[in-house]
Structure formats: C-alpha cells, structure tokens
C-alpha cells in the first residue's frame, strides 16, 4: 500500500516537474470556458451569493457549494480529451 502511494507521489511529481500539469490545467480552463461551463458556474455562484448575502459569503462557502456541481457539469467530451492526454503521459512515463 505504501508502495502504491509512493508511486502516485512520484508520478504526480513528474507531472508537475515536466510542466504537463500546468499545460493540462490551461487546456481544461480553455475547454471549460469554451463550452459554457464557466458561465453556468457563475450563474450558480450568483444564486449562492444571493442566498448567503453579499457581505457574508466566504471562499469556503463557495467551494463547498460549487465544487460538486462543477464536477458534475464538466462535459464528457472534455473529460475524455483530458483523460486521453493523461493516459498518454502515464504510458510514456510509467514504464
């Protein structure tokens, strides 16, 4: 088990070191903006903020409310593309 987590840590480190994580993040951000995910999320944020009150809303509130919805709303095509990139990276570097 510890061996497994060590491997995960190594892969994650590689991902960061080689700059691939940053590239993937950028790709994801672009795709999400493109497909309207960001607008949907902003609309959702508005509801949350109105509910909590403009003055009292905190980052934690937003994270708690937004993250599950955000995960659910990511389109399958975007997921697929990202996964393909990740798999390619793993195949290259985990052999």
């Amino acid at each position, binding site marked *: 088990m510890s061996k497994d987590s060590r491997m995960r840590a*190594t892969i994650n480190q590689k991902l960061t070191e080689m700059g691939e994580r940053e590239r993937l993040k950028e790709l994801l951000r672009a795709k999400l903006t493109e497909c309207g995910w960001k607008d949907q999320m902003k609309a959702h944020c*508005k509801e949350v903020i109105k509910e909590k009150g403009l003055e009292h809303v905190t980052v934690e509130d937003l994270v708690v409310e937004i*993250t599950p919805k955000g995960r659910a709303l990511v389109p399958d095509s975007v997921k697929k593309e990202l996964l393909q990139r990740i798999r390619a990276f793993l195949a290259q570097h985990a052999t």
Partner: protein
Amino acid sequence: MKMEEVSMSSLDNSKLEGLAQDILSDLVEDACLGLCFEVHRAVKQGYFFLDDTDQESMRDYEIVDQPGVDVFGQVYNQWKNKECVCPNCSRSIAASRFAPHLEKCLGMGRNSSRIANRRIVTGNNTNNKSESDQEDNDDVNDNDWSYGAEKKAKKRKSDKVLEKIPCALFSLRECCIAPRWRCILMSHPVYLLKKFNAPLSIRALHERKSS
C-alpha cells in the same frame, strides 16, 4: 531512480486508469477552486454583479423583429434616396454619390474634371486654341493614372502609335508617351525602365535614343 522505474512498471492497467481519473478530478477541482477565488474576489471588489440588469431595462434593448425596421427599431434605408445639392455646380446628387462627385467637381482627385474645365475655359479663348489642344492631348494620353481596362486598351493603342514613328523623326516631346515614361526616358538609365515595368516599345525607344 532505478527503484522507481521498477516499481512503476509494476503498475497494472486498472491502477493506471485509477491514477488518471484521480489526476483528472484533481484538475477539475483546481479549476473549481480557481473559479471560486475569482468569483469571491469579484464579489468583494464589487464588480461581480455589474452585468446584472433588471428586466425593465433589458426590455429597452430587445431586438426588434418587424418588417421594414432594423434591430434597433429604426427605419432603415431612410437616407437611401436623400439628395444633396453640390455647392460647386448646384446640381442635386444622391447622397451616396455626393462625396465622389464633390471630389471631382472641386478638382481634387486624380481623375477630376480639371481637364474638362480647362477645355471649357480655353474653348472661349480661341487664340490659345492650338497650344491648349496639344496640351489636352497630352493629358488625355496620361492614362497612367486612370483605372481599369480602359487604361490597358489605351496603352496598347499608344504603344502601336509609338512603333509607327520613324526613328529619324522621332522626338520625345512630340510623341504621345505618358509623362512618367517621358521623364525616365529623358533623364534616367535603362534599368529604371525595367524597374518600373515599362512597355517593351518604350524600352525600344530608349535604345534608339541612346544609339
């Protein structure tokens, strides 16, 4: 390092798949977190709700979809048939043609009516007729500066005329070469003719002149 390699090769496919899924959800969470920060900052700085408007004011900017009216609800083409009176010649001209007309009428453009004007002026003055006629011819043949197919046709015609001029009688001043070529012929070496893509007949003239 070697140890890592060994341990990583022991990963089987399902574990790799799990790892990929984890990385993806990490990334998505990152994106969410980024959005949260962004929105939170916008809220606290007070610019998050800037683009929110109430239904009332939105109605003012709705797209109008009616025949004969543009998206803003204004009648379009209302200026189409307007006419303007030219301050120079007092004719009334369609608004869309007014600017080009004024340019020519006031004699500002390349193709302005200055030649015609001069003709009218000199037509009254019969004494100068012969001289002005010659000059007019000169300008008519200055088809370097006009546009289109007319130009090409005229040019070819003038090239033919040039070829008919006997070498001995040839004088640069009298032949109908566009002034552009004339000044190059009189003062500049042959490479300029090539550079400005002069017609072959003009290059031939140059050779005759220099021989």
